[in-house]
């Protein structure tokens, strides 16, 4: 995978990208191992909670309620954050969010920023925009550092480098950190990252973060993390810039009692992740940055809000549990989805963020098995949304495309008994030249023309029986009436 950012507008279709991923046995092994481990850890800490289903239901209702009053809670957050010394900016789309951040950073005269892992900044390709403006962004999350130094792309929401194993990571660090003697134990690699980044934490004066939750009631922001790199970026710089989708707001501080139980157990299989930080504007006692900016970004989230069936997509709290549980993701890994949001949630989020103009193949990247729904901590019915989006794709592709035409034709035929029987007769005649008999006299079709060829590419089709069930039944009934013995 190259250093080119994952961009749904230019990514190949899912089946094409998946085919490439399926050929990479190392990647598949790494993804399988990582998802197996997280799933087992998650199951252990979820099963020990007798009130897990009650928490899921509350989580769902809190998120639903928030979306119903999104304008109210965003204005409340803005008011309280501003009163606490924060500066709130609004962005209609990715370009506007990037422009606000670049302008702020350039205004400070900064040439470097330190960053906390943030899928939102990946979504808007912030690092590329900063580089273009002459500002270097240091990724400080271990996985994001691996991705950045390896000129790679994230493949999972929570564990972005899960497609790399320790030998691959060691090669990247040896080369990029100039450490020829580096060992290959995970501890050696983490120590190398600690030393490499500590100097940056102490030196760089501007931090950029995402947010897990924006608290409307207090104007506070909550960031959930493991390594302490988040705390470094949130507390040591003089200026902190946080970019968050408008969907990240929660009504009250007390709502965290639900979300902070659901998120860590679902995301990393921990009872609580090592660090949660909550801060409100600029601290009056001089704890942390002297200036705090937060950008509230739409970037097509309001489009999703307007679609009643798709709206639940916005309830996502980005735990990644659906990715670990998905039989499709577990085979292909994340890059095949052509977006920073991979797996089942990516399959519904990405096309909607693209307003259905791109990524139309993603709603089909699922067997609709429902494993994602079962593990979702806020009960997003992903299979339901997938089907809804498939409908949208079909409608969008117009009624004149071959598949839609064929389906309409089928509809007409199935509606009338006479037409159905005629079609069966016609089918038997039409297939005759293609049928080959096997040793037991059963007919098989190994090749079909055109659109139907997709079926016979990977399997044979049994020929139509010489007599249909209806024909057989009618013959049987009429022979009974005539008193002819069956035989």
């Amino acid at each position: 995978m190259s250093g080119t950012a994952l961009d749904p507008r230019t990514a190949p279709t899912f089946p094409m990208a998946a085919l490439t991923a399926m050929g990479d046995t190392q990647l598949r092994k790494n993804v399988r191992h990582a998802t197996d481990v997280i799933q087992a850890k998650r199951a252990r800490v979820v099963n020990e909670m007798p009130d897990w289903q009650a928490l899921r239901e509350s989580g769902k209702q809190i998120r639903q309620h928030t979306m119903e009053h999104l304008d109210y809670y965003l204005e409340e957050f803005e008011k309280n954050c501003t009163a606490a010394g924060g500066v709130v900016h609004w962005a209609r789309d990715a370009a506007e969010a990037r422009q606000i951040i670049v302008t702020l950073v350039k205004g400070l005269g900064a040439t470097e920023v330190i960053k906390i892992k943030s899928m939102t900044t990946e979504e808007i390709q912030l690092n590329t925009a900063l580089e273009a403006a002459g500002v270097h962004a240091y990724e400080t999350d271990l996985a994001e550092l691996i991705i950045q130094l390896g000129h790679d792309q994230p493949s999972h929401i929570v564990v972005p480098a899960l497609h790399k194993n320790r030998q691959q990571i060691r090669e990247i660090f040896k080369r990029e950190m100039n450490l020829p003697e580096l060992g290959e134990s995970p501890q050696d690699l983490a120590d190398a990252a600690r030393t490499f980044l500590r100097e940056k934490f102490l030196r760089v004066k501007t931090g950029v973060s995402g947010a897990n939750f924006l608290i409307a009631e207090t104007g506070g922001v909550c960031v959930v993390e493991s390594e302490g790199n988040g705390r470094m970026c949130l507390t040591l710089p003089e200026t902190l810039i946080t970019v968050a989708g408008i969907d990240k707001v929660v009504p009250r501080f007390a709502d965290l009692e639900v979300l902070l139980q659901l998120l860590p157990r679902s995301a990393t299989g921990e009872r609580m992740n090592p660090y949660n930080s909550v801060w409100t504007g600029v601290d009056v006692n001089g704890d942390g940055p002297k200036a705090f900016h937060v950008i509230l970004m739409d970037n097509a989230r309001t489009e999703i809000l307007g679609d009643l069936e798709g709206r639940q997509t916005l309830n996502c709290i980005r735990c990644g549990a659906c990715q670990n549980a998905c039989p499709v993701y577990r085979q292909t890994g994340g890059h095949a989805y052509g977006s920073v949001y991979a797996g089942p949630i990516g399959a519904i989020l990405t096309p909607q963020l693209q307003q259905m103009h791109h990524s139309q193949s993603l709603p089909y990247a699922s067997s609709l098995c429902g494993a994602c729904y079962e593990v979702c901590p806020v009960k997003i019915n992903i299979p339901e949304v997938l089907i809804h989006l498939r409908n949208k794709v079909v409608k969008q592709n117009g009624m004149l495309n071959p598949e839609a035409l064929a389906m309409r034709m089928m509809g007409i035929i199935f509606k009338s008994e006479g037409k159905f029987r005629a079609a069966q007769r016609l089918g038997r005649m039409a297939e005759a030249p293609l049928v080959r008999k096997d040793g037991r006299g059963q007919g098989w079709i190994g090749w079909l023309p055109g659109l139907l060829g997709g079926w016979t590419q990977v399997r044979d089709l049994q020929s139509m029986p010489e007599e249909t069930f209806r024909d057989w039944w009618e013959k049987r009934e009429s022979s009974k009436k005539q008193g002819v013995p069956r035989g």
Partner: protein
Amino acid sequence: MASGMIGSAREVVLGRIRAAKGPAASAEVVQAGWDGVRRDYQRSARHSQAEVIELLIDRLHDYDAQVMEVARGEVASAVTKMMTARGVRRLVVPAGLSAELLVEGFEFVVDEGLSAAELNTVDGVVTECTVAIAETGTIVLQNVPGQGRRAVSLVPDYHLCIVNVANVVETVPEAMDKLAPTACFATTFISGPSATADIEMTRIKGVHGPRFLDVILVG
């Protein structure tokens, strides 16, 4: 950037939201909606205080923290024992830390706005905490006397936290209730030493925050 442009982005985004889900609701309607959220999960303790303390100790051990349980009069000797075992000499402490914790034989530097570089030169930090959550093995620090700025408990490599058993609760909702009056203070939930599982999902202790965390329970 012109402020007019920010204003217009704000109006556009809020306008889009209202077009998507309906007009703005009154505070009463929003309040009623929030009150209507079902909350059938566990909101209070199920166990006795002694069992809750035991659970907290078990969870902290899970994170490889060292834990000592001592009576009120034995805190100083426990602090000495813990810090001697870890081999730390020079520690930073937040202003307002109980004087009895500043035991002899160690050098204590009171944080009066130390720079990150200065914090990087001490061996460790000693703090108290606002609340501890047994079910998750979490200690919660806020920017108040005895707990200090967030950077103080972050940059040094060793963190010793003194927990009053009266501040130990069983569940996360109980902790949030306790934190609610000071929700606007800079707050950090700490569950074990800093860690990562980014490399092959192996838990590695100590990436950027303190690599060692010890807890003394005083009751």
